[in-house]
């Protein structure tokens, strides 16, 4: 039979020698191995205080983007919802009224934009589908919650802070990630 791996070892079926039957040498060998682990570095990340570094391509929580003047990019075209394989995105569009030009970039905007984080599989297809660079996946992940309702993120949870009024919070939410234009 062909071996499945290159690391296979032939098992010896010979009767044990006297030294092997004593057990104690092999037990001491084992104890030396466990003792050496005292000096090994722990791979543990102490979570709430320390967090894991994510790679720049990490797909985490969604962010609804704004442009440099702080206007929402989303036009409620629904392409993200169509692209979503998990059907996690729901939205309702509304028409921009006169005087709201500083809030929404184009004539139509999303009045309601909800993502069910329990359905979402964080594939990033919404990000790919969006023609307006309005949605992208950040480097954070959805924190735990007590209710199912708590996992349905609305606009207030998703929207990135205003770059004009809160530049620091905006930079933090934006993270290291490049938003492709």
């Amino acid at each position, binding site marked *: 039979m062909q071996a499945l791996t290159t690391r296979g070892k032939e098992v010896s079926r010979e009767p044990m020698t006297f030294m092997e039957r004593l057990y104690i040498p092999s*037990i001491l060998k084992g*104890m030396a191995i466990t003792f050496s*682990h005292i000096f090994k570095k*722990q791979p*543990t990340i102490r979570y709430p205080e320390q967090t894991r570094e994510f790679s720049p391509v990490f797909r985490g929580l969604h962010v609804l983007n704004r442009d440099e003047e702080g206007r929402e990019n989303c036009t409620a075209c629904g392409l993200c919802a169509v692209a979503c394989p998990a059907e996690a995105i729901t939205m309702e569009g509304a028409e921009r009224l006169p005087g709201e030009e500083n809030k929404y970039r184009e004539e139509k905007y999303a009045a309601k934009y909800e993502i069910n984080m329990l359905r979402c599989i964080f594939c990033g297809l919404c990000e790919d589908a969006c023609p307006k660079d309005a949605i992208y996946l950040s480097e954070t992940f959805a924190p735990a919650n007590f209710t199912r309702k708590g996992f349905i993120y609305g606009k207030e949870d998703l929207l990135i802070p205003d770059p004009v009024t809160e530049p620091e919070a905006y930079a933090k939410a934006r993270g290291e990630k490049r938003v492709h234009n």
Partner: protein
Amino acid sequence: MTLLAFDWILLVEKLILIAIITFASLGIALYTTFGERKVAAILQDRPGPNRAGPFGLLQPLADGLKLIMKEEIIPNSASKALFILGPGLAMTAALMTCSVIPWSSHVELFDRKIDLQIADINIGILYIFGVVSLGVYGIMIGGWASNNKFSLMAALRGASQAISYELAMGLSLIAVLMIGGSLSLKTIVDEQMAPGAHWNIIYQPLGFIIFFICALAECNRTPFDLPEAENELNFGYHQEYSSMKLGFYLFSEYINMIMSSAVMVCLFFGGYDLPFFDESRLPVNYAAMVGLGTFLIKIVIFIFVFMWIRWTIPRFRYDQLMNVGWKKLIPLALFNMLLTAAVILWRQG
């Protein structure tokens, strides 16, 4: 008037000593559980409990509180009196062993010479053996009274294991007693401390190994933790126990571990003797403190070795356990005894 002629201060002194030693053993046992988890974690490259207090030092208190607050469940089909008696007996037997252990030499307070030992009885080590074998009843009664087949199996295993290993343990001990010529732990320690004398481990390496293996089995520690075997017996004899009754079983195990470490230190490692150091040059009280510290450090080292073994090797199978006990250890112990006797005879000429 004979009653009044009794040395009442001695009684008070001993009561205080008993209280201190009982609470100290409970406290140490509490922290041994913490030590066990930390040692396990470190040997497995984990941090271990580190949330409660600095370095997780309050963890055992949290565990104790949890055990006390939990619901007490006595199964319907259990035999109630025996069910309650089981953990109590295990705990009592475990705590009783500490009464003959010489924790250190003596201190001088208020013009009185106070021995740091509850009772220096001349059959000290025999007393320990007697009490330890009583501890088996805790396991057996607990397992029987639970009315659960797994518990019963575990109790049977525990009892047969304890009986088979006590034999080899006693035989290996005889060799030590032949060298020292006394059953009193204090005398055994003093003989090892005497100028020019060596620790018994030098004369009795084989005896020590046998004694150590048997001590592991007596404490139901891995690789001899068959009574507890989680994977085959579902937690063994304390499966039906909850709350502090379970806590008593777990506690008594740790106290047993501490006590068997203490006995091994006394018998083979010179008790409270600090090596390469002459305690008699120090003032009495300082010497006692140094001795106590040395004794505790030696115990801690032994407890660490117990844990280290536990987190290294897997459990023996039941037939292997019996084979090792009856076919290997007992003949070896007998051989060791004969050899010691022959050497002693030869040296006497």
